[in-house]
């Protein structure tokens, strides 16, 4: 059964704030952070007063040395952590005010890729990718078709009955990307996606991730590899000790 949806609902969403200073929202912004801080221990900050905005379909690198707060920033965006201070609006939803039940619904609209792939060795490639559809209760036949189409885009369709450990590192990361993309997410977050890969595979994976943004998905890639930033000439946000120290937008780039 398909439910009727009004046209262009996104622009109608207001942030879920109750009494708090209402964050201004823009219909074309996928991610908005206002004076966000995250502290795990009193007095020490993993992120400090970060205000950033990423548009729909925008591609951006998050750079900075280890411990700069890149991973924390991504974790805030998919609701794995809550900000200690500030407001975050992701796809029109105010993350800091989301109830426990709303976080999973938001995550279904966000794909996440990690350096260590996070694939389940017991499951086949196809089953790993299908996890993202199992969660939605997608009928099996439909799920298999979607998984096949996604694997095919990534050149992995012939590997679908293999187990992850029999695949190369680059192939495993492509499986992880397939899992992140199979639901056609509006945002793709990648935390050092090429950190475990050699130079050739790094470019292969990065080309794939960059092409995702061309299809309208907002893509954030955390990396400490500055050569990638130079190579792709995209927006790059530099974090140091939890603060934004540079937000470089190439001339003629998006946003």
């Amino acid at each position, binding site marked *: *059964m398909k439910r009727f949806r009004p046209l262009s609902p996104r622009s109608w969403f207001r942030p879920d704030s109750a009494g708090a200073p209402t964050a201004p929202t823009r219909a074309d912004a996928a991610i908005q952070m206002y004076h966000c801080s995250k502290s795990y221990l009193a007095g020490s900050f993993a992120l400090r007063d970060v205000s950033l905005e990423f548009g729909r379909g925008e591609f951006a690198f998050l750079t900075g040395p280890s411990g700069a707060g890149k991973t924390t920033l991504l974790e805030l965006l*998919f*609701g*794995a*952590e809550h900000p200690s201070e500030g407001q975050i609006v992701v796809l029109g939803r105010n993350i800091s005010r989301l109830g*426990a*039940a709303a*976080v*999973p*619904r*938001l*995550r*279904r*609209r*966000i794909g*996440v890729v990690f350096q260590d792939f*996070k694939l*389940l060795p017991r499951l086949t490639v196809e089953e790993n990718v299908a*996890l*993202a559809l*199992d*969660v*939605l*209760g*997608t*009928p*099996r036949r439909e799920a298999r078709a979607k998984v096949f189409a996604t694997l095919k885009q990534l050149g992995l369709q012939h590997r679908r009955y293999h187990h992850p450990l029999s695949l190369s590192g680059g192939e495993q990361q492509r499986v992880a990307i397939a*899992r992140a993309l199979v*639901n056609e997410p509006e945002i793709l977050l990648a935390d050092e996606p090429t950190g475990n890969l050699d130079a050739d595979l790094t470019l292969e994976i990065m080309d794939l991730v960059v092409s995702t943004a061309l299809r309208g998905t907002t893509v954030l890639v955390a990396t400490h590899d500055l050569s990638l930033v130079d190579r792709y000439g995209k927006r790059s946000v530099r974090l140091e000790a939890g603060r934004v120290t540079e937000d470089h937008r190439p001339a003629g780039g998006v946003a």
Partner: protein
Amino acid sequence: MKRLTVLLLYFARTTLRGLRGSPVTTAVAILTISVSLVLVGAFDLLLRNMEDLLDDFGRDLHVTAYLEDGLADAEAEHLAAVLLTVEGVESVRPVSKDEALERFKSGMGADLLDGLDENPLPASIEIQLLPEQRTPAGMRIVVESIRGLPGIGDLGSGQDWVEGYLRALAVVRGIGVGLSFILAFAALLIVTNTIRLAVFARRDELDILRLVGASRAFTNTPFIAEGIAQGAAGGSLAVLLLFGIFHLVLPGLEFGFEVVLGSAPRFFHASEVLVLIGQGAALGLIGSVAALIGNARP
């Protein structure tokens, strides 16, 4: 509707995979539950049989007034008429010496009294109580009010026996309830730990599922189903074991039961079997929910 079917199928697959994935811990949990429920069920069965017996016994609970030897028939008839007016008495039935002898012979064998010249058995009047009076207390009232009436030698009733039986029943019930609580608690701990281990073994999968947007209900359901399945399997195994034990032990007991109490012990009815399996399932459910509480990772 379709989505629900898909989800149910997914949960069934995941639950089966979980059970198959850790056969040893699953088997230990099922065995623990079944051993606990065998003991609980054995007490339950004993109690039910004892209660059934009490019901049977209560149905023909009556008082026998043995008449003094040499009482004339007219006097006996008068006595019977008097007894009928006593409150709580439903009916009376005189039993002559000859009839008592006949009953004894048919009950115990004809030749037991052959050596005697004279019939040693007294005449009696069997006093049937009104249904509401057929309790140890009700019987005591009737016995007290007819004791000492002229012509009555002795009074026989099952009163003492019933009172003793009720005390024994209370003791068995007390032990059964106490034991059930202890065993249920032990089984609960085992189930809780089994599910905790299963959650731990599958934490990577759970993290990934949460990452791709699984709700807590979605990730918890297979574990709860696993607990219920283990509990129900334990309950079913307990019923089978009890059935086996019952039919192994019964031939030895049956003779005693039949002679002393006049009825054979019974096994659980179908509905009682379902209750036992349901108790196992409930143990599994509570155990798995307990295991999942506190496992609140975002």
